């Protein structure tokens, strides 16, 4: 059985309003910059697509995909499934994430991007789940701070479903725990 959406946490109109606010702020901050926006697949795809259409500044775009691995040992790693092709040297990089929770994958990506010696690296995330943070990371542009619930929609999935929902919804907790 597919778990059901228990409630709507952030409505479509709230998202639209906040995305426009973020786009306006980013456009102001990155005026006359060599801006490169990096979309973290797959979750950020809808947020990214809407955000870049609100920008009033020229920008280059890149797409990365990361996978987190957890094993029996203390340490696990992050693997790049799809990486970067553009030279980021002296660029102003803005990572666009759907959600930051443990901070693990974001920290990995920040570390990797820094190796290209960009002028600046900042983070824009639609959602922040600070209760789950394990690695300290700074979010420079934040859409919404949310509680520690399992959320889906607007790009975020549960078992690859629900990404197309136009809102952020909370999944039924029991269903998620049972893995149904």
């Amino acid at each position: 059985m597919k778990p059901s959406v228990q409630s709507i946490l952030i409505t479509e109109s709230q998202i639209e309003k906040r995305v426009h606010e973020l786009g306006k702020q980013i456009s102001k901050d990155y005026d006359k910059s060599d801006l490169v926006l990096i979309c973290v697949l797959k979750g950020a795809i809808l947020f990214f697509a809407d955000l870049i259409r609100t920008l009033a500044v020229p920008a280059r775009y890149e797409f990365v995909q990361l996978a987190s691995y957890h094993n029996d040992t203390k340490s696990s790693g992050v693997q790049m499934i799809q990486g970067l092709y553009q030279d980021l040297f002296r660029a102003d990089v803005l990572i666009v994430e759907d959600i930051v929770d443990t901070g693990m994958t974001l920290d990995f990506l920040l570390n990797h991007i820094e190796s290209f010696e960009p002028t600046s690296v900042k983070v824009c995330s639609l959602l922040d789940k600070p209760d789950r943070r394990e690695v300290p990371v700074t979010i420079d542009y934040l859409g919404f701070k949310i509680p520690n619930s399992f959320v889906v929609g607007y790009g975020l999935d549960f078992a690859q479903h629900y990404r197309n929902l136009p809102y952020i919804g909370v999944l039924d907790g029991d269903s998620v725990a049972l893995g149904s």
Partner: protein
Amino acid sequence: MPVLVKSLGVGVDREACIRWLARDPIHHLMLLGDLYPPLISVSEIYVATDEGQIVGVGSLFRGFSTPSVIITEDNPTVQNALLTKMSRRLESEWITLSTCTSSSVLCQFGNRIYSHIELQMLLHEPIPTPVKPARLIQREEFNSLNQFYNEHRVEAWTPLMFEMGPFYGVWHDGQLITAAGIHFVTPFIAQIGNVFSHPRFRGQGYATAATAGVMNHLRGMGIQIISLFVVAENAPAIRIYERLGFVKERELIFAHNVSTGSLRNETFSAVNPNH
């Protein structure tokens, strides 16, 4: 003048780097592979220069769940400079493949928790071998191949490799039971890899057939040097490769390391459920 280490793209030309490495493609094969797309997109390349001349190259490959460190072999001073720069980007664990000489330099940057000897073998005179029942794996069959490798935890596999060169497979009742392919292909050298047979179907010549398919395909592409790595203790695999015309070239040490104090020492303990 001290050795300077820069990232590729920070005043160092990729073509110059490839030219420098291609002087000795057999010993620089892993670094050459990381400099070609799509592997370059998940690699951090570091170049050591002395008075403007390239003297060494290092790669931090992020296409595996544990990052892989490869450096050029010649000079300990250069190796130290490369590793010092690269170590700032390393997580707590990393793997490497190196000669015995370089291994001692690498030991300064990580404590070895596992190691084994790998053999590099090169194709000298190919011995004609039937490719049937193996055949080229088509793009629409990629998901079967990816699932097969993931289910059997084939370690040196990343889906990006499918973009670089041929993979051959054998099917039984609609299921992929053997596959062989490449780790990378460059104009100078290709590395055969990801050779795996389901345990129930071993000893029937399927891996030989699939590897022959890959080998012939690469030769048809005009690749002059065809290499592979095999665990030195894996006698059955070595026999297969020798029957195909491969000859032992050199020994390398594969090592799994935990970073020492100078490195970043973060541990990751959870998976982000929302990604």
